[in-house]
């Protein structure tokens, strides 16, 4: 009797199971081979002010700002979703009656190699040629990759990374200068978001990085390197986003304010 019951339950499970599993198998095949049955939610491409630069390329009543680089250039971490592309024009606006047009070409996770490629492929030629100011934030992602290594490997890897970074940055500057000799270039130095956990050696490597960057940037007469570390170091709690890496809204405002002060002299004359 027990044998019969077991057999019937096994048989029922098997028949039902085969039907269900066949359905699932068909689905799995469909999902991995056919073109997607569900279209991903429609992506709305917001028109940023970047597209208007074309029409007003030579408009003398406006100043054009081009923002290049990584997530910080993009404004990642700002809980209000603004970042430099909103905060910086607002800050500059206090010094000039002119309109400020912004093109933000920042890409999260961009390394110096990527920035160079972005400039080389020519998609930024138009905003680049018309820009009065170019804000660059790059290098953080280059440098961050060495953090996970042991001290010995760190030092070797740092040299390699720094060499390629500096050579990329040099080429970036050459491209910028060749298509736009007059724009003011503002380079944002790196701050250390991991203040609590970095070792002494890491701090010195990172200082060396900033120092070499500054030397390279400042060798160009119309370029300036603005440090961010002195602003952030004691204010990490106040200026850092919950992800522990990017600035938050207050951080971006503070940085924008600092950039505005540095540029005050040239903006007034424009």
């Amino acid at each position: 009797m027990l044998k019969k019951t077991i057999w019937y339950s096994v048989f029922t499970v098997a028949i039902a199971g085969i039907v269900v599993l066949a359905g699932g198998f068909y689905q799995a095949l469909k999902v991995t081979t056919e073109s997607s049955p569900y279209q991903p939610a429609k992506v709305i491409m917001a028109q940023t002010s970047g597209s208007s630069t074309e029409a007003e390329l030579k408009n003398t009543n406006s100043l054009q700002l081009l923002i290049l680089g990584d997530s910080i250039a993009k404004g990642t971490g700002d809980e209000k979703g603004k970042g430099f592309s909103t905060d910086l024009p607002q800050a500059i606006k206090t010094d000039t009656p002119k309109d400020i047009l912004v093109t933000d070409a920042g890409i999260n996770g961009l390394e110096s190699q990527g920035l160079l490629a972005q400039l080389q492929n020519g998609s930024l030629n138009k905003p680049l040629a018309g820009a009065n100011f170019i804000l660059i934030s790059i290098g953080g992602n280059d440098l961050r990759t060495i953090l996970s290594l042991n001290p010995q490997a760190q030092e070797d890897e740092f040299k390699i990374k720094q060499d390629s970074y500096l050579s990329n940055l040099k080429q970036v500057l050459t491209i910028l200068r060749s298509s736009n000799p007059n724009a003011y270039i503002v380079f944002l130095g790196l701050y250390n978001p991991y203040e609590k956990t970095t070792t002494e050696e890491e701090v010195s490597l990172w200082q060396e990085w900033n120092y070499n960057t500054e030397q390279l940037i400042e060798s160009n007469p119309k370029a300036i390197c603005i440090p961010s570390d002195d602003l952030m170091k004691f204010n990490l709690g106040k200026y850092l986003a919950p992800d522990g890496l990017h600035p938050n809204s207050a951080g971006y405002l503070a940085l924008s304010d600092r950039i505005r002060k540095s540029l005050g002299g040239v903006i007034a004359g424009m």
Partner: protein
Amino acid sequence: MYSLIENEVTKMIAKKRLMFVLAILVILISVFAYGQNRTLARTKAQLTQRMGITATTDWHKLAEQQLIDMKGRLDSPYMDAKSQSSLTVKMQQLQYDLDNNINPLDQSAAKFTATFMEQSIFLFLPLLIVILAADMVSGESSSGTIKLLLVRNIPRWKILLSKYLALIILEVVVIFCAFLLSALISGFFFGFGGWMAPVATGFRVLAGKLDASGVFNVPEWQFSLMVYSLAFFVAVVVGSISFMISVLVKSTAASIGIILATLIAGNFISFFLSDWTLTHYLFMVNLRLTDYLSGAVQPVDGMNMLFSVTVLIVWALVSTIVSFVYFTKKDILV
């Protein structure tokens, strides 16, 4: 025919093979679930140490921030179209976690159930099937009971077919039990929910590269269903092959040994000889079907879901044909 199958299944259950397989499942799932639990605790502790207590307990803020950032990235005109769909999928998942108050770090029974089978499909599941299949025929040869089967006035192919169908029934039972046991046991560790959470799927391998442009989310129950269906398919294929070996070889030990060695060698081969095209046609290399589903696949030129499924079907068909031809033709001297 029906009574023949019934007879075979009852025999297998009486032989305690099935119980043995289920016991292995219970033990291993418990161990895995416990291990996962430990790993989870350790990851959280590490995160807390690195980013402060807020990262693990007060994750809402971080998730909301990530959502805003991803939205910003989607809106960027410099975002290439390819990464848009994977970003959208990530946003949907994060939004779901936020809406349902699920810490993205946490494990759930549903997640565990799918992961368990994804990890088992290429070695552990085949092993269980081999335990069942390897002595279906050779066991009768070595114990001599095959005489009793054949003296009855039933064609040989019917006897073999009933054995084969009994094996398929047992495979369904194993898959069903694996699902039930891992959902239940992991439920005690991680809570029984998570079946509606979105999982990304829809990856394709195009020209040796993983293409994520068509990615979309399906609920976890549907994902698990697909994973277990693929596992069942793999079980049938491996079952057919070990069935053939069980027909060809008289000793049960030898038949288990042969198929185990093949399976394990297959894992080495896929590791060392991935650029040798001939190895792509081995069945052991094509068992990881679920990787195509979850996008965890190491893209190899020329291999995709359809290729792997076709290769496996051919292996299963050939093995079945060989079993039947050999069994009906051979002289049985006991």
